[in-house]
């Protein structure tokens, strides 16, 4: 059986969901026998490939580059998963949403040259940090801040079996 082509990416988040993924511990080695990691912060492939079966997206969408990449990735992906609360709801990064972008940046960086105010050498901060479904179609939602490793495992087992993963009870919790 060919390996399932899995990718992961983190956008505006804390990387905690990826750390929770690594908390699969020894199960990572078992997973590696069934899937191929074709793109991820923990591997060295730099270009998002075509024909990705499953993409785990951690984080909200906070800047112009992330919005662009998410759209590109969606196009090349069969099943796109909102991985963790920031991707599902916007969560902590969206706490800045009621505040004007310029005020956020001026408070952090002062009155001089400020990164992110305009499109420049670094991407422009979007006016609001958005959950994924505000920008693209999301196929599956995996909540948690972060989702605990056991929840990730149940979810992935379902996906790899070609089923719609059924999360129940405590596995549906945010936070």
């Amino acid at each position, binding site marked *: 059986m060919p390996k399932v082509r899995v990718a992961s990416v983190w956008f505006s988040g804390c990387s905690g969901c990826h750390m929770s993924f690594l908390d699969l511990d020894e199960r990572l080695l078992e997973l590696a026998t069934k899937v191929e990691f074709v793109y991820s912060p923990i591997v*060295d492939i730099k270009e998002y490939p075509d024909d990705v079966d499953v993409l785990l997206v951690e984080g909200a969408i906070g800047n112009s580059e992330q919005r662009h990449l998410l759209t590109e990735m969606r196009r090349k992906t069969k099943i796109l998963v909102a991985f963790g609360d920031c991707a599902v709801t916007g969560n902590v990064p969206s706490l800045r949403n009621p505040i004007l972008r310029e005020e956020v940046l001026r408070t952090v960086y002062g009155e001089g040259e400020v990164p992110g105010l305009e499109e420049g050498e670094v991407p422009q901060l979007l006016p609001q940090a958005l959950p994924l479904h505000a920008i693209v179609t999301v196929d599956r939602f995996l909540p948690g801040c972060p989702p605990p490793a056991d929840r990730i495992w149940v979810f992935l087992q379902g996906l790899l079996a070609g089923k719609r993963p059924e999360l129940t009870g405590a596995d549906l919790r945010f936070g």
Partner: protein
Amino acid sequence: MTQGVPLREIKVPVTRIEGHGLITVELNRAGKVSRARFHVTEGRGFERFCRGRTLWEMPALTARICGICPVSHLLCSAKAGDAILAVRPPRAADKLRRLMNLGQYVQSHALSFFHLSSPDLLLGWDSDPKTRNVFGLAAADPQLALNGIRLRAYGQEIISSLGERRVHPAWAVPGGVRAPLTAEARDRLAAKLPEAMRIAQDALALYEKSVPGWAEEVRSFGDFPSLFMSLVGEDGAWEHHGGRIRFVDADRAIVADGLDPARYPEYIGEAVEGWSYLKFPYFQEAGYPDGLYRVGPLARLNCCDRIGTPLADEALARFRATADGKAVTSSFHYHYARLIEIVAALERIGLYLEDPEILSPRVRAEAGVNEQEGVGVHEAPRGTLFHHYWVNEDGVLERVNLIVSTGHNNLAMNRTVTQIAHHYLDGQKITEGLLNRLEGGIRAYDPCLSCSVHAAGQMPLRVVLLGPDGEILDEVVRAA
């Protein structure tokens, strides 16, 4: 862009580090490197949106700055809260906070060495990028990869034994911690300690045996004289959760000592550049950008008089012997320092697990808001972390300043990228392996760009080679 010059671009998303960034390398007419910069490309604005939240929320909220070292922000925030409550946490709470932080050193340092950097170190900088990752490592050396997983898991288990979860435990609070350690958890952790120690010592021995083969990288991955900053104990020993600030120079001579962490604005300045979301702290006396200093494992080992536990002190003596007793100045040896710190952390964990006071139920000092300003300082795995809060009489945040570990190293990371570019790219045919060394230089710092507060997310560390007129030269795209 110059007319008629073919536009070619090198994109090297830097993977196997934590966050989003970009390296740009500029060449002069002779094809020599004129400037190289490391940009951080995302920001979230914590210092603004934390205004209006309450002091009590801050440990759990700021933990979300970083999922790799959430414990650092949790503990540093709780310490800033201690200052605002004007209380000293009970002794057992201080020990438990330290125990959790040591667990974090183990997991975070293990992640850096085994999961992120050992593919370069052990499979080679020039090895196939398709397999140059932890899974490729598992195929080449299953036992080593398994060791890395188990060592990291041990650190995570210490954290979850105290805080009920591995990532983002809501456990430390202003005044202490929420829950004590149970005897069962202590016994379980003590039983697993010998295996963790064996793995850590094996990794350290492997590094020491292999380092002659990395001589060129040691010389070029950020080897330059600089200042180093860390907390040290009142007695000058290695410290991670208390003590005072010390600066040493490249001769390991003390430049400043006994500095009150709460008065950091008197000796640390913060510069902003429009080309990076990450600020540039500097030692004020030397000005910007000459006041470059480094923090983290390398700095902690250069700053302290001794570590204070036998195995770690033996390793420290070997470490220092590589620099004739002066400061170890190559950032490549952050890896070395990290492995020594894992041993140090495990030795101290062993001491705490033998200490009967660790089971005391008295772990929280209750108080209200007694001061309107407080600073917490702490050594995160990657270096010194400051949380500075101003609150109103109800404990609602009015202003927040955070200086994160990776920020202190911003100037040094830029200098390192420049040195590697000069060494490997000047007049060279650019290869994937050479570009991976640029990334490797950044990886040595184990930068936490999630932590950079002003920075987060996926790390497409794009390398752009610019010609003298700003045109983009050459293109090496890593094949997927």
